[in-house]
């Protein structure tokens, strides 16, 4: 029996040796980046491999090797939970607007040193001084999007398209898909009714619930990313999603499907921005990375890869980019809203208080059960 212990230790040691073999040497710098999944040009299908290109660019410019640990998350809340517990540490993160507001409030972000981010000058004026970061000191916008309604023109009568009403149209009962998360689903009803999505008054939320209940019998299913396959195949004919994602669907639609897209008058705007969390290990390196992401080649590649609109003027004035996407696409992605920041500040989702969130969850359960 006494020999079993050395045996165990030997096994553990062997594992340890195998593992340390792939660790990096001390001379290589490390940068930890935490981003949404599928949210960066990653070299697939012959695209620009942002992370690897950054590594070689850095080595050429600064003469030192760098390794980027690129991890992904699936929701703002997942990212927040891991960071706030101190479970992980990242140098650059790309959360959404309302989460940035919350993290600033909780001292989880570091103010940026814009001397290291000269490319910030290319960020459009519309994306400055927005509610989540009024002083523009914590975040650099990466991409933005607007929710619109997608429909299959082979099923839907053009005359019915326009506004949120299409998602409540009884003619298309059993053909409509709705968001499978409470904030976005309630949002469609609130925008339709002209309510403020950030108003925490329970009575207003009850009103939105009543509206969703009238829609419920018409709904085929509650979807998130399932919407891609359902719309592409023609299984569903009406649904709301982000403009950029509509183009992904358009690329893959079946022959019998003819997808179209429009923005309702009042709808959701979102911005995802690059930030440096307070657990950052090397702030200057993180700022160099952010600056690199704003330079022409990676910024254009990322905008083309994700199909989301870019706040970077190097992107939307680039002729190659405009040509690659085509006029129609550009018109939808960049609707040329003059008062973008005013619209955004009024319509975008903000962080709700925990009471309001709890109330929303209760209503959501009530809706799903009924």
């Amino acid at each position, binding site marked *: *029996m006494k020999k079993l212990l050395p045996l165990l230790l030997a096994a553990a040691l062997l594992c340890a040796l195998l593992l340390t073999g792939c660790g990096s040497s001390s001379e290589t710098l490390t940068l930890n980046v935490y981003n949404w999944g599928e949210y960066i040009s990653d070299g697939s299908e012959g695209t620009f491999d942002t992370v690897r290109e950054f590594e070689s660019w850095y080595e050429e410019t600064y003469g030192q090797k760098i390794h980027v640990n690129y991890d992904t998350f699936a929701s703002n809340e997942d990212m927040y939970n891991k960071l706030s517990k*101190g479970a992980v540490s990242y140098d650059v993160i790309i959360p959404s607007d309302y989460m940035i507001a919350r993290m600033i409030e909780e001292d989880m972000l570091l103010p940026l040193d814009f001397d290291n981010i000269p490319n910030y000058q290319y960020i459009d004026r519309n994306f400055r001084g927005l509610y989540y970061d009024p002083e523009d000191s914590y975040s650099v916008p990466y991409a933005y999007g607007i929710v619109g309604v997608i429909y299959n023109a082979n099923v839907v009568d053009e005359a019915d398209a326009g506004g949120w009403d299409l998602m409540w149209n009884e003619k298309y009962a059993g053909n409509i898909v709705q968001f499978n998360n409470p904030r976005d689903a309630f949002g469609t009803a609130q925008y339709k009714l002209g309510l403020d999505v950030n108003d925490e008054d329970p009575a207003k939320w009850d009103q939105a619930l009543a509206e969703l209940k009238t829609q419920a019998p018409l709904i085929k299913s509650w979807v998130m990313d399932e919407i891609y396959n359902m719309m592409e195949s023609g299984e569903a004919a009406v649904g709301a999603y982000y403009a950029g994602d509509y183009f992904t669907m358009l690329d893959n639609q*079946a022959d019998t499907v003819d997808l179209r897209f429009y923005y309702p008058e009042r709808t959701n705007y979102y911005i995802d921005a690059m930030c440096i969390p307070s657990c950052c290990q090397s702030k200057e390196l993180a700022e160099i990375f952010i600056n690199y992401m704003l330079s022409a080649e990676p910024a254009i590649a990322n905008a083309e890869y994700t199909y989301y609109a870019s706040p970077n003027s190097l992107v939307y004035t680039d002729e190659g980019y405009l040509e690659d996407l085509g006029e129609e696409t550009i018109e939808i992605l960049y609707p040329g809203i003059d008062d973008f920041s005013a619209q955004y500040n009024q319509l975008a989702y903000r962080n709700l208080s925990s009471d309001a969130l709890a109330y929303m969850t209760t209503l959501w359960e009530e809706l799903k059960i009924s």
Partner: protein
Amino acid sequence: MKPAAKIYTALILLFLFAPIAILLVFSFNEAKSLSVFSGFSFYWYEELLRDSETLKSVKNTLLLALSAAAISTVMGTAAAVGMEKLRSKFLRAAMDTVTNIPMINPDIITGISLMLMFVFVGRLFGLATSLSFWTMLIAHVTFCLPYVILQVLPKLRQMDHSLPEAAMDLGCTPMGAFLKVTIPEIMPGIVTGLIMAFTLSLDDFVISYFTAGNGFQTLPIRIYNMTKKTVTPKMYALATIIFFVILALLLITNLSDKDGDIADKV
């Protein structure tokens, strides 16, 4: 009655395997769609081989599953041997209960409590980040361990205990008797435990999700995180490859088992 039962079974099998079949077929699709098959191609397989982040996550997954399976098999076998030797009824019951906890506990509770524990311990030691490959390994060993124990323990109970005693009577050291007599007797249990631990670890998402640290993402986590956009057909290609590798492994083990049986009979 009989044809009805047959149809019923066929339906069950159909519903179980149709999604896998669709996935296999569409991994050879030329286009990105999961609904329209536009032409046969190996395009997505080529794409998969070019996707370094996904390949890295496959490597991570295998590394984790292999180490977790190896460690939990050694520890689990040792634990089973110890538990079998326990004389006190109370201790036995206590050990059984403790073993069952990770099995009965919902994954999400195991995952979150392990994460909180790692964070707490990390703070005690003043670490900047508490989660790493090692915490993930500990978590995986934790939930694999009971399955190994439950595979090995019955084999030990079935075993004829006079055999190792006889070996020692004939001059074998206790260690020699354990290695030469006991281990071969309980080997089927150990192997089943190892395979179960490996599959469980390979497959796990929830616990991994909460205990994953910087720069070490496993395949299930990577696929889950793709859902902001949509999961690319590269993943169908990867799933097809994994499916056939596992199928081949199962066929080989089953066939070699049969050979063994025949050899025994002869």
